[in-house]
């Protein structure tokens, strides 16, 4: 089916992606015109394509880029940031918020992963923790009620497959294209969750969106890639298998009582003593525990991202650096 779309209607393919995205946003009740959406952008194809589609559809969608200080000899963070800034410069209606994690907290992901026990040999685990915390914090502080990420079908199916192989019931109960807001968390949505990775890549290419081709140096050889390749072998022999696996899982959970009762088993949350974000542990949340007292208790001012807004003036693009309070 996907192949059709590209083969038969190349000139209509971008419009098809945009329409489908709009349809999924409504069908799964992700957000509406009244919502303020913050798109987590990495410089990769999925997040930039998503941001572009949301802008095209006329939603109020701004970008958030987290500088993670990942160099590893290939300048990964520098290159990805330039990609995101170049995109923002071409879309003057949207704002781009940038938080340099290394600049603000004094350490990027590699140094942090070497220092803390949680990160030993697993920088992606620390990276995920930092991203979740900072995205939620920044969304809250800048007044965005929805956080959108570029997860595509292949991402979702790879996660579902891994969680099923290990019967990680608590994760299976939560995996969803929409996680409602509440308890100090922004709503989290994945408008691309039904698109194949080939489709989001094709969209980026057809629309002339420059994205970073290189993989995060830490992700190379990661288990996700292994599972994606495995699932693509299944897809090659059985077209549609990936989409069916995900949709039938969601349906079994919603309509047939798979994992029923799990969602009510809510763990009690407390606000973190330092940042106020909800956490299961008493005292400090896992993010705040990464840092020394001095680092974690910086002023809101010091923790604020910079905002780039490429407003157009007299056909000349000029960069306006704004002070970005909510609203």
């Amino acid at each position, binding site marked *: 089916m996907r192949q059709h779309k590209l083969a038969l209607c190349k000139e209509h393919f971008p419009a098809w992606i945009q329409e489908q995205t709009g349809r999924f946003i409504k069908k799964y009740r992700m957000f509406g015109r009244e919502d303020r959406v913050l798109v987590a952008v*990495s410089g990769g194809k999925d997040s930039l394509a998503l941001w572009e589609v949301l802008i095209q559809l006329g939603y109020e969608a701004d970008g958030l880029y987290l500088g993670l200080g990942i160099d590893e000899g290939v300048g990964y963070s520098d290159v990805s940031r330039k990609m995101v800034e170049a995109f923002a410069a071409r879309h003057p209606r949207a704002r781009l918020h940038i938080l340099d994690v290394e600049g603000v907290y004094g350490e990027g992901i590699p140094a942090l992963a070497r220092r803390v026990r949680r990160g030993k040999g697993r920088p992606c685990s620390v990276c995920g923790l930092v991203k979740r915390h900072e995205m939620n914090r920044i969304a809250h502080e800048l007044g965005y009620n929805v956080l959108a990420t570029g997860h595509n079908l292949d991402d979702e199916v790879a996660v579902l497959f891994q969680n099923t192989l290990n019967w990680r019931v608590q994760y299976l109960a939560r995996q969803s294209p929409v996680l409602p807001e509440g308890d100090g968390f922004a709503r989290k949505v994945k408008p691309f969750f039904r698109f194949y990775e080939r489709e989001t890549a094709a969209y980026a290419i057809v629309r002339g969106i420059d994205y970073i081709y290189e993989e995060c140096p830490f992700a190379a050889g990661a288990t996700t890639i292994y599972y994606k390749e495995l699932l693509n072998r299944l*897809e*090659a022999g059985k077209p549609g298998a990936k989409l069916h696996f995900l949709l039938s899982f969601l349906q079994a959970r919603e309509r047939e009582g798979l994992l029923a009762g799990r969602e009510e088993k809510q763990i009690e949350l407390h606000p973190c003593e330092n940042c106020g974000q909800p956490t299961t542990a008493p005292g400090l949340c896992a993010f705040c525990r990464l840092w020394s007292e001095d680092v974690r208790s910086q002023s809101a001012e010091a923790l604020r991202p910079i905002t780039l807004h490429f407003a157009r003036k007299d056909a000349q693009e000029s960069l306006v650096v704004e002070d970005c309070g909510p609203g």
Partner: protein
Amino acid sequence: MTEKVTVTLRKQKWEVEPGKSARKIMEELDLNPENFLTIRNGELVDESVRLKAGDHLKLVAVISGGSHGS
């Protein structure tokens, strides 16, 4: 002008006989077509497209492994 089709994937390069589809070329290189997009002479094409002598076929890997959003 070469009589062959040049195929590139990142830093790898091959020369293959013309007249085959992009899908066939990938299969012969032991690459799963599901993992790639095919770009002929700078333009995104369907994998069923047949390549002629002198064509350049660029394979773009679509699989990414990092989590999203930064």
